[in-house]
């Protein structure tokens, strides 16, 4: 396929939509068509069946059904993870959210995963689904692309499990607005010492508790970097900050 030509065509359609001109053809796909293609591609039938049932029951129009299934189909055909979108769709349907809102949320996720894939493929030869999932989810939840880009550019040669842990920390800490500079510093310490083990992904829990007690991000970051350079554990960070992990989970309510 001539890539340039097809992109030109696609951009032309994009312009039509943006400038509000109605394309002069009818919608080509019915929900049944979409469903067939989705199943062929490998989308699991549960969410497709649910949407179809709701259209049949009259809760959604055919057009709404098509709009809801489209992002899943696109993700699948582009080799992007479908499960997160299926989960979001199931959530939206269960919460009885307006279809437009669901479509918007799905497209936000789809776009995030697309950007994640582009970002990762710029620096890495092979991208595991886990890392794509972590970066995609992180982007869809507002973590800055620069933070991920900087991390991936520098550490993509690291062993995959450690690389994944670092990515998860960028994602989770980014989501709670933890100082990204601090995150970078502690990750660097962890990589240099070799002390970054998978359990560090949940440093975010310690951060949340510490913040509740008025500890600043920089103090937390320094403690974490110090512990990482000594190849310690996340519990050591709590201890350094003055509270034990028991006190974190001492309540009966422990989940």
């Amino acid at each position, binding site marked *: 396929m001539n890539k340039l030509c097809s*992109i030109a*065509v*696609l951009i032309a*359609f*994009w312009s039509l*939509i*943006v400038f*509000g001109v109605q394309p002069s*053809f*009818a*919608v*080509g796909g*019915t929900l049944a*068509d*979409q469903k067939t*293609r989705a199943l062929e591609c490998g989308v699991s039938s549960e969410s497709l069946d649910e949407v179809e049932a709701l259209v049949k029951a009259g809760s959604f*129009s*055919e*057009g709404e059904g098509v*709009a809801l299934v489209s*992002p899943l189909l*696109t993700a699948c*055909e*582009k*080799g*992007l993870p479908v499960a997160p979108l299926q989960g979001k769709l*199931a*959530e*939206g*349907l*269960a*919460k009885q*959210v307006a*279809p*437009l809102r669901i479509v*918007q*949320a799905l*497209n*936000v*996720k789809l*776009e995030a995963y*697309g950007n994640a*894939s*582009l970002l990762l*493929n710029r620096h890495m030869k*092979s*991208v595991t*689904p886990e890392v794509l999932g972590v970066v995609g989810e992180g982007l869809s*939840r507002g973590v800055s692309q620069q933070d991920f880009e900087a991390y991936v550019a520098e550490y993509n040669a690291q062993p995959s499990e450690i690389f994944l842990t670092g990515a998860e920390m960028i994602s989770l800490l980014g*989501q709670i607005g933890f100082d990204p500079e601090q995150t970078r510093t502690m990750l660097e310490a962890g990589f240099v010492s070799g002390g970054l083990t*998978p*359990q560090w992904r*949940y440093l975010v829990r310690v951060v949340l508790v510490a913040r*509740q007690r008025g500890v600043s991000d920089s103090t937390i970051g320094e403690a974490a970097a110090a512990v990482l350079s000594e190849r310690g554990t996340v519990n050591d960070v709590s201890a350094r900050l003055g509270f034990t992990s028991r006190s*974190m*989970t001492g309540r*009966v*309510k*422990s*989940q």
Partner: protein
Amino acid sequence: MTDEQKEILMEDAIVESIRRAPEVDVPEGFSARVMEGLSPKTPSVWTRMYLWLVRPQVLTVRPLQVIPVATLTVALLAFAFIQMNTAPSEDALRLANVRFVMYDGEMSAQNVSVVGSFNGWKADRSVMWYSVEAGAWMLEAELPPGDHEYLFLVNGERLVPDPLAPLTRDDGFGNRNSIMFVVGENEQAL
């Protein structure tokens, strides 16, 4: 006339009085006031596409020259094709025991379930039981490591975040989900 008939008559009269109750007039210039405060909407590409899709017309199918919706979506996102390793990770299969707790000392709720990312947001599989001792609704579950989003479904109608969850997250629909971090076997999330 029987009491029942009187009752029916009275009900009719009440209904009539509601039907005919006068409506107080809106103050002058009200609609102008409202309109003044509104700024024009600038629909996103997605919104335009969605509205175009749901416009009240009969969908017709025309072969070949028609560009399907999925391709249109692709056009708007313009990805490169990617080669991917699709083997699932083994870590994901290790489950951990977790417990959901919702305090309700007076047992004011009639039933509570947990709905979340791990059960497709469907309540039927995760009904909580009430512990008089703890004064709380509980549910034990086995979840794989990771962060899970969830809410409590109270009396089958209200979705309520977990007041004890240390972290909440925008669900993308304008509300918030509670987050539970599952770390490893029998580890406690905050």
